[in-house]
């Protein structure tokens, strides 16, 4: 078939049509998590711990239950017993058991006839707490004498003698560090820290749940992955997985934070307790910030050796990652990716997963990679400055390419780091002259990408149009990408394809829209499903013509005889074959199920110019360039959108965003006033260059693009500020007070 012969020429791929769900979203018709209601619906509210760490001695809900309109109260006693591992972690995080483990930890929940009554009712629940000593800082949590969050949580990997809050240990490397550092002309050691940042999706978590005493339930919710939600909820409530059907609503952003559950099991428990009435549960913003999963905070020691012409001879890193009151901080990703951009012979990484009295961290766009990049790309920049070398040249000198063995083990297939560096070097932005108090920073970043469980279905309709069903919620325009790939495969107009997100009963299991996998993995599944349809369509034409199916080719939406030898027949359109479906053998559809492992990693390079006000320490981003390898951009506007969105989030993390805990262990900035994400006036236009080094593992060359874009901004901004001020900052975020203090300290030194 044409798909497999040589380099594909595209008719639809690479165009920029309007997205299929655009009309719904510009008119307010699209239905997000909180927009769905049901007859007889109750409203839920959750009571949360005001303590960072406390024993729960007693919960008395009698006053709440006496309030008119209150139909049910649940506590941990209403969830399943006997869970272990991550199932227990998730259940415990959704509803505290013996202890409240962080400020905002759920301790009880109410269902009532209105949201206002439910909120009134939670205030009437009396909880006896015995406050315990707490710790929220990663270094403090590892130190001798730190309060123990939970004994016995450490896994087999942790060496003896470490604090019980260290729950996972990860070490990898190669070569001989001493030998590598001995070859260096310059060796630098630095300590870096990054604070926890929140994904900041504008839609708070919301769901509508219904669960009967018979164990059959339905859940509508905003999620990146409804099969994950189904499994987690079933475990938390002791249900058979198949008895629960989960349907995803439209989703108002996720960035990794909606790949797990926080309120869904609680809503199901409330519904069961209230006799099976549907319960809507919606988080407030402060609940989102206090009690969902921000990313980990990090404390890192980096050492690097370099020759005077810029060749990295050795690198080592120690990464302490704080992931809240449960195991799961992304130590493996951080360590694996730390030096992955570069061909380094002698390299060593150590990672610690550390618990503290903070909410359970969740994935956030390239989990762990931005912190790792902050360390690596900052120290390289400082060494480049000391050696008088160009920062892009130094990266080109060490960049990995096809065939190089990665610092994390395998040999790289075709990758595009060098191409992004060269494109950045030749871009106009790299030559713009800078004024006083201005500086330019560059940094590169990488994300591995992911395949994972994938199941899709393509059905031919009676009129020859096509219904595509995928299991990855559309979070940023992926319906358009799926439709483009299906249109390309079939050779039919984009408008003739409609893409649906299937519920958990309509497809095999699917991993979420995470790991930059949707366009790659669901896209691959759609193409393979379309191929299966095309085979069946071609066979119907062959049967109608009375020729061998192998003598039929598929081109531009038509079955044709493969040549004069096959016979002289008028081409048969998809609509014609579809119109005769019922009389020619029945329905035509195609399916694909697999866990594809041919994902290709995506490298990116960012160049940023900033101006720092020496009077206030305020940083203004003057111009910003993102260059990234997309493999093949299916819908270039949405690829650029991912680049720009990732950069904007990274700029926020670098300059303003941080979780601030008080001495009392309470989160001090749980609203958007103080948790300050970038607004339109904080940002310039973000220039983009799409590099296309095709992924050999995808029929159209696709690489995932969603996550890499947040990896370079942290160091790129810090490097630009260093260039503008002459002061190196190693602690993020670079808020005006912190930058001003650094400038003053340097002046006084």
């Amino acid at each position, binding site marked *: 078939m044409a798909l497999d012969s040589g380099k594909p020429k595209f008719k639809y791929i690479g165009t920029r049509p309007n997205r299929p769900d655009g009309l719904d979203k510009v008119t307010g018709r699209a239905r997000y998590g*909180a927009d769905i209601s049901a007859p007889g619906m109750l409203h839920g509210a959750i009571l949360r711990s005001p303590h960072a760490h406390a024993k729960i001695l007693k919960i008395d809900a009698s006053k709440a239950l006496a309030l008119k309109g209150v139909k049910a109260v649940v506590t941990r006693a209403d969830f399943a017993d006997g869970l272990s591992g991550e199932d227990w972690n998730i259940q415990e995080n959704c509803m505290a058991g013996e202890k409240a483990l962080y400020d905002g930890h759920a301790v009880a929940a109410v269902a009532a006839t209105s949201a206002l009554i439910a909120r009134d009712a939670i205030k009437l629940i009396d909880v006896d707490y015995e406050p315990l000593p707490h710790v929220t800082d990663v270094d403090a949590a590892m130190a001798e004498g730190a309060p123990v969050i939970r004994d016995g949580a450490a896994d087999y990997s942790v060496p003896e003698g470490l604090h019980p809050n260290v729950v996972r240990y990860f070490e990898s490397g190669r070569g001989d560090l001493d030998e590598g550092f001995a070859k260096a002309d310059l060796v630098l050691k630095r300590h870096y820290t990054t604070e926890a940042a929140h994904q900041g*999706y*504008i839609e708070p978590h919301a769901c509508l749940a219904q669960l009967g005493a018979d164990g059959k339930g339905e859940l509508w919710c905003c999620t990146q992955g409804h099969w994950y939600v189904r499994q987690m909820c079933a475990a938390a409530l002791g249900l058979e997985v198949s008895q629960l059907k989960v349907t995803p609503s439209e*989703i*108002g952003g996720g960035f990794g934070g909606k790949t797990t559950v926080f309120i869904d099991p609680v809503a199901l428990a409330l519904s069961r307790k209230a006799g099976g009435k549907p319960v809507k549960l919606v988080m407030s*913003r402060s609940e989102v910030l206090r009690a969902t999963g921000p990313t980990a905070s990090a404390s890192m020691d980096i050492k690097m050796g370099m020759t005077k012409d810029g060749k990295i001879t050795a690198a080592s890193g120690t990464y302490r990652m704080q992931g809240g009151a449960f195991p799961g901080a992304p130590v493996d990703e951080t360590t694996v990716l730390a030096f992955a951009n570069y061909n380094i012979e002698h390299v060593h990484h150590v990672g610690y997963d550390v618990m503290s009295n903070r909410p359970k961290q969740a994935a956030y766009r390239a989990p762990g990679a931005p912190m790792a990049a902050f360390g690596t790309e900052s120290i390289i920049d400082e060494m480049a400055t000391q050696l008088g070398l160009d920062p892009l040249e130094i990266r080109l000198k060490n960049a990995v390419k096809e065939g190089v063995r990665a610092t994390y083990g395998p040999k790289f297939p075709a990758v595009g780091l060098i191409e992004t560096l060269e494109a950045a070097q030749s871009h106009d932005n790299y030559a713009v002259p800078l004024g006083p108090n201005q500086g330019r920073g560059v940094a590169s970043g990488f994300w591995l990408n992911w395949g994972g469980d994938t199941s899709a279905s393509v059905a031919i309709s009676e009129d020859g149009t096509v219904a595509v069903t995928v299991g990855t919620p559309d979070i*940023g325009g992926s319906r358009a990408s799926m439709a483009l790939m299906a249109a390309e495969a079939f050779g039919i107009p984009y408008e003739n394809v409609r893409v649906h997100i299937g519920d958990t009963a309509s497809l095999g299991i699917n991993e979420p829209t995470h790991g930059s996998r949707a366009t790659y993995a669901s896209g691959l599944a759609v193409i393979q499903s379309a191929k299966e349809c095309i085979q069946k369509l071609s066979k119907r034409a062959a049967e109608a013509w009375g020729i061998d199916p192998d003598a039929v080719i598929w081109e531009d939406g038509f079955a044709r005889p493969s040549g004069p030898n096959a016979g002289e027949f008028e081409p048969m359109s998809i609509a014609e074959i579809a119109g005769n479906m019922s009389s020619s053998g029945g329905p035509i559809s195609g399916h694909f199920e697999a866990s594809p492992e041919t994902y290709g990693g995506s490298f990116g390079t960012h160049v940023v110019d900033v101006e720092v006000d020496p009077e206030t320490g305020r940083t203004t981003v003057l111009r910003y360039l993102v260059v990234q390898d997309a493999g093949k951009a299916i819908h270039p506007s949405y690829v650029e*959108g991912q680049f720009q969105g990732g950069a904007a989030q990274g700029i926020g993390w670098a300059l303003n965003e941080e979780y601030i805990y008080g001495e009392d262990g309470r989160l001090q900035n749980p609203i958007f006033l103080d948790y300050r994400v970038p*607004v*339109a006036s904080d940002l310039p236009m973000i220039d983009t260059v799409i590099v296309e080094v095709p992924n050999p593992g995808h029929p159209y060359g696709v690489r995932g693009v969603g996550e890499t874009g947040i990896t370079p901004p942290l160091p790129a901004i810090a490097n630009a500020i260093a260039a503008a001020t002459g002061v190196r900052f190693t602690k993020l975020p670079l808020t005006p007070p912190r930058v001003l203090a650094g400038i003053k300290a340097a002046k006084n030194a």
Partner: protein
Amino acid sequence: MTDKMHVKLNVNGEDHEFLAEPRELLIYALREKLNLTGPHVGCETTHCGACTVTLDGKSVKSCTVFVAQANGAEITTIEGIGNPDNLHVLQEAFREHHGLQCGFCTPGMITRATKLLEENPNPTEEDVRFGMAGNICRCTGYQNIVKSVLAAASELNGAKEAAQ
């Protein structure tokens, strides 16, 4: 529970009357009583702008207005700005210029932008960035939102010139 009060609103050109607790917020009255789920709730503290509506001619965050305060007001929500058969120029521009990714902030963005272009029919990029600074988008980096608003402004101005 407090006594309920009688509230009258004109929303998207239609009169509505209902009972509401004085502490009830306008956004919930719109969403739950009138089933207008286009305006969204993102923060409940006026910062994100997902709930933006036009109230008596001004852009207002309906998450921090009591429905009691809005009694007697004329309100326009995204549903009153245009519909799929008759899109407002801004809705068309957001669609054409990919001014959205997840789309959750979009109704508030467009609602705010309708007023911005009334206040300033010829905005510069900077005017748009500052004029829309009360509406947070976490997906796009604002790039295509700014482009959409600027494109709609030039479209509206072109139509005005053609009419003169």
